[in-house]
């Protein structure tokens, strides 16, 4: 009985965190945000060097061959540094789609390039994960797609897209396919890229699995967990920033951290966030080891981290007073990152509806 990270896992996470502290300080995030880089080349290169894009890709395809729990630990580190790089779609969901439903040729074509950081994969499954908005929906016929997909993740730098059609069939679409229009959607979170994809009889390769439904399910579960872990890292960093700021800022002749009202806000943030870590760990573990509850745990992790993350994000901002509200301190990058993670692949209410269905309640 051992419910904790292995030494390797703890070391891997620390390596990513250290790397990001070095290559991705707040100034780099600002720069990337200003120039709309959502795959900041130097950050991406440093992460590629330590295997992050290929973390869950099997070794035979040039990846590291680790588990989803490891990917969640990486996501936590990325959220902590609000790193402007693809991850949830390109390093988690798309590899799972290819590994679960791709033909050997499709796997051989894309997995090694994704693992090596040479290619980025976007994923368009919002209609299944959170429901169709604004008439979104993709129809597939005879190897061609029509219609539109909204909120494709990691879309800006994508060379290829994994797209789910209305029926849940999965397709690979080259980013430079003729008659594919990619329109970037500007969001609050300048560190991530989402896009609208419009297909007009666009050629697509079907991902060949006979029954794509379980693959799509796994992709969404894993994506949700990656976003939840991103919130954990971002929230943890916001608490640290709030505690540090409270130890320095003086009012009424004392540091504000000596005011109980401020201390209790910090205690509440920590008390809410700390159990989330165990929930993320379990959901990561369940993905590979507790098949019966894997989807449920991913949903709970996503919904609960979204709720707690939102609470932490606004509370940590309040602890910083007016400074928290300004651009000067940059705290808003974390605030927005949490806000983005919360809505993608299903906001809490939507994800809890799924959690009900997974238990036969709805």
């Amino acid at each position: 009985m051992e419910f904790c990270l292995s030494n390797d896992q703890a070391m891997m996470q620390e390596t990513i965190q250290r790397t990001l502290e070095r290559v991705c300080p707040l100034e780099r995030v600002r720069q990337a945000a200003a120039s709309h880089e959502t795959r900041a080349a130097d950050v991406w290169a440093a992460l590629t060097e330590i295997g992050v894009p290929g973390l869950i890709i099997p070794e035979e395809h040039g990846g590291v061959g680790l588990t989803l729990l490891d990917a969640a630990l990486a996501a936590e580190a990325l959220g902590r540094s609000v790193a402007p790089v693809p991850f949830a779609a390109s390093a988690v969901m798309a590899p799972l789609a290819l590994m679960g439903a791709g033909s050997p040729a499709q796997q051989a074509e894309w997995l090694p390039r994704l693992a090596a950081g040479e290619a980025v994969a976007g994923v368009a499954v919002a209609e299944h994960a959170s429901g169709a908005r604004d008439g979104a929906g993709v129809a597939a016929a005879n190897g061609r797609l029509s219609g539109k997909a909204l909120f494709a993740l990691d879309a800006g730098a994508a060379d290829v897209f994994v797209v789910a059609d209305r029926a849940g069939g999965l397709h690979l679409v080259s980013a430079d396919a003729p008659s594919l229009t990619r329109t970037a959607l500007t969001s609050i979170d300048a560190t991530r890229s989402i896009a609208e994809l419009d297909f007009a009889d666009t050629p697509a390769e079907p991902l060949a699995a006979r029954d794509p439904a379980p693959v799509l399910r796994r992709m969404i579960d894993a994506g949700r967990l990656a976003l939840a872990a991103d919130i954990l890292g971002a929230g943890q960093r916001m608490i640290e920033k709030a505690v540090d700021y409270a130890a320095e800022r003086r009012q009424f002749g004392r540091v504000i951290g000596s005011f109980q009202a401020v201390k209790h806000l910090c205690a509440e943030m920590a008390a809410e966030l700390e159990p989330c870590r165990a929930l993320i760990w379990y959901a990561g573990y369940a993905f590979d080891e507790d098949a019966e509850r894997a989807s449920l745990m991913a949903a709970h992790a996503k919904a609960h981290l979204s709720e707690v993350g939102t609470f932490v994000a606004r509370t940590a901002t309040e602890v910083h007073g007016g400074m928290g509200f300004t651009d000067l301190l940059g705290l808003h990058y974390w605030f927005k990152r949490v806000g983005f993670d919360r809505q993608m692949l299903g906001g809490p209410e939507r994800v809890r509806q799924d959690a009900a269905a997974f238990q036969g309640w709805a």
Partner: protein
Amino acid sequence: MDLAYGPKYEAFRDEVRAFLAAHKDQAPRGGEQTMAGGRAWQKLLIEHGYAARTIPRAYGGYGAEPDILESRIIAEEFVAAGAPMGMANQGISMLVPTLLELGTEEQRKQWIGPTIRGEVIWCQGYSEPGSGSDLASLKTRASEDGDDFLINGQKIWTSTAHLADMIFCLVRTEPDAPKHQGISYLLFSMKTPGIEVRPLVTMTGAAEFNEVFFTDVRVPKSQIVGERGQGWQVANATLKHERGMLGDPNQAGSRLKALIELARTETVGGERLIDNPVWRDRLLKLQARVYAMEFHGLRLLTGRLKGEAPGLPGLIVKLMGCELNHQLAAFAIDALGELGVLYGESPHLRNHGNWQRNYMFDLGLIIGGGTAQIQKNIISERGLGMPREPKPAS
């Protein structure tokens, strides 16, 4: 990550199951628990090592090596079988560990056996009218009189004092010392002349705790635990055990199960609650919290197995665990609508009125044993390293 217990522990689990299958019918049933029935069950549990498991045999326990996983398996199996666990009163949960840690050999021999068998019931005499959260300011005075202390003063919120045979009590022996250094920890009989117990009715309607008045209560000096003036340290050993006892995630898990059952069976206008998206959503929010606390418990358990200090993750358990239990009871009440306010002997009453009773009692647990606000002080100061509360000169 490895959540398997392994063959040795699975064999142990089989033993516990076999015991429960063979003996469960001897367990006292909820509601009709008598003192005698409870003691007989307790005796059986100690004989088999399912209560007082790690208390040395010399003191009347079962004498097993401490093993966190075995304790956990016992708890899991008893909960799964719906069988009552061994007794968990303040004597057993708080005094016995304190005596094991800091008592004299004679005190251990005299008190541990009868306490774990349920023959001696204890109450905890800490809080006073003027000293609750600021416990160290307590004033109940023990002055010297030959080989005895003479005790004068008052305690309050003393749970089960009206049933207790004995009290473990904090008194001020050194009135001139700084407030944390003038306290002593005494054990004495509640039948000692000069003690008056007045029950305080609580919001649940039961007289669960009391005021206790001391007038020239004579206690031999030998009945002290630890050194004179060291009572604060002794008491802190006890408080540590108390906070471990509160906020237990097992309880939240079985309460959630009951809530799911309630949502599946109760109907409003013919619609099951679980089919209504509003109730379902609220239930799911609670379910996520219960899981988070359950896994958080596993994380802490692993830390204990490795001998790590619990740190911040340990400090949040009382606050979050008690709050969650309270919220679980609140859900049941709201989901029951008007039925939720029925109490006492009312027709249509659900679950014997226990949801309301739990809801109120849990608020008591949020306050008792260190209030939620005091927990937040502790989390921010010891867990996050924020500045300490200014300590007024004592």
